[in-house]
């Protein structure tokens, strides 16, 4: 069995164990079904409600992905600007922290007034949730460069832009990518929270609506089914981003190499 196959097996086994634990706990403590249903009940409901939940997932995922792109684009741009000029840093950081700290429900009304399309408003709200970790990591990464490498650039008269493009950005990549990985899941939860706050229902209803609806109707199994879908989407997104991160860092020879090592004896 190859290492990768073994890895996948282990991963699946752990997941199965977690689900078993969940079912076991629910049964052992006789947790009522309308509080926390067991995974079997949730799975059954997931199957039953698939025609409602999957389109909702698609809507939310679409919002989240768009928001991720917007958030990463904005955060990296702002991070670059903040590092390029102290003046800009002092302007950008307070605004960024403020936007991060203010809950979506409080900004949603303003956004809804000024943005005609609800879909656009949702993307904006979700992006607001996702962008700060990327910004923070980008700034940290851009600032943590090797002083000798920087000397090299100074020596040959590099402009700030050249230093940025050929030194700071590649050197900051591990930080930026770690931030993007966090932003991926945040964009997803941001999309849901935005849906809560901005409230769409009907045919373009996202998962948030299904979660709320199930909550009000006390169809908790369905609510958990929606949450499970959300979690699955989150895991998938996280896994993809992590994989992409690894590939990119390896390509750029920035990965912390794991070399083949001898076993203890031999």
């Amino acid at each position, binding site marked *: 069995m190859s290492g990768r196959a073994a890895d996948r097996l282990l991963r699946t086994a752990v997941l199965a164990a977690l689900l078993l634990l969940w079912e076991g706990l629910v049964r052992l403590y006789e947790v*009522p*079904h*309308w*509080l926390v249903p067991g995974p079997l009940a949730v799975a059954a409901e997931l199957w039953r409600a698939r025609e409602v939940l999957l389109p909702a997932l698609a809507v939310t995922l679409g919002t989240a992905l768009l928001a991720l792109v917007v958030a990463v684009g904005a955060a990296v741009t702002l991070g670059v600007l903040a590092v390029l000029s102290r003046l800009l840093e002092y302007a950008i950081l307070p605004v960024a922290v403020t936007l991060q700290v203010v809950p979506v*429900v409080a900004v*949603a*009304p*303003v956004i*809804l*007034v000024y943005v005609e399309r*609800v879909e656009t408003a949702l993307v904006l709200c979700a992006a607001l949730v996702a962008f700060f970790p990327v910004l923070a990591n980008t700034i940290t990464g851009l600032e943590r460069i090797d002083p000798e490498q920087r000397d090299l650039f100074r020596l040959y008269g590099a402009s700030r832009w050249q230093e940025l493009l050929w030194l700071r950005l590649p050197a900051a990549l591990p930080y930026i990518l770690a931030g993007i990985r966090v932003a991926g899941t945040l964009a997803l939860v941001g999309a849901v929270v935005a849906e*809560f*706050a*901005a*409230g*769409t*229902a*009907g*045919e373009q209803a996202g998962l948030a*609506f299904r979660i*709320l*609806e199930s*909550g*009000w*109707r*006390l*169809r*908790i199994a369905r609510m958990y089914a929606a949450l499970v879908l959300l979690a699955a989407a989150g895991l998938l997104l996280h896994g993809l981003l992590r994989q992409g991160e690894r590939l990119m860092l390896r390509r750029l020879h920035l990965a912390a190499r794991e070399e083949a090592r001898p076993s203890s004896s031999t």
Partner: protein
Amino acid sequence: ERLVFGLNWVAEAEYGGFYQALAKGIYRRYGLEVEIRQGGPQVPHAQLLAAGRLDLGLADNMLLSYNFVAERVPVVAIAAFFQKPPQALLAHPDAGVRSCEDLKGKTILVATEDRLSWWQWLRHRYGLSDSQLRPYTFDPAPFLADPLNVVMQAYVTAEPYVVRKVGGFEPVVLMLADAGYDSYANILEVRREVLEERRDAVQRFVDASIEGWYDYLYGDPTPAHGLIERANPEMTDDLLAFSRSKLLEYGIVDSGDALELGIGAMTDARWRSFYEDAVRYGVLEPGLPWQEAYTLEFVNRGHGLDLKRRLREGR
């Protein structure tokens, strides 16, 4: 005897009767030590009630009561403190909206939650469409930003006040009750377990609350308002007085069956007809044992009618 009673929203005049009962020691007189817990827009009120974090709670409308049955959650409705739902639509006087017939073509701000309840009634009755909807976040700003084209959902007891104060105009009010949405509101819900084990205490709570409501509506509301303002400092005397006057004006608490049977009154006919409407509009599934959603054994006894008479005469 201790009872934890959860509100489904933050403290306001809509709960005036309960606060009055608390403030004037009516509960204590009935041998009860009642703790009122506020709710809020995202507070999982129903689940807290079902899980036993609360002994008693309030349902916003009858749909929730039916949902308890549909999902086999052991919670029952025992009294309806609002005979009419206080929900309404607000329009600018120049928007040309005089009744629900005029809503076609208007943009309507409706909260997500309400799209599953009264919006279905409205939509079916008046041939409206989902495409008219925009989200309502309980913030009237989008309405005020474009009052000639936008119609906003509201609690008749609160938002008209805000609109008048901030927007500077007296809005047209369309009561949803008049549009055929005849749900009870502020429905007192209790877990079956509590009902069975502490039947007597529950009855005393209902009776004391009814007295509280009569006292609040027809007596001096100051004690309740004091408590409400303490619990929710954003409340003002002004607003509370406004809300209370609307409760009276629209007969939200004391009208219809309640005039005969006392506050809290409920009837089988109303529960049946609402359920049938809900099925017709696709909000609930047919075939539900809907009678299990409630019990009439605690109300309809004319409790407090004499108190009401005394209060009115005293004035």
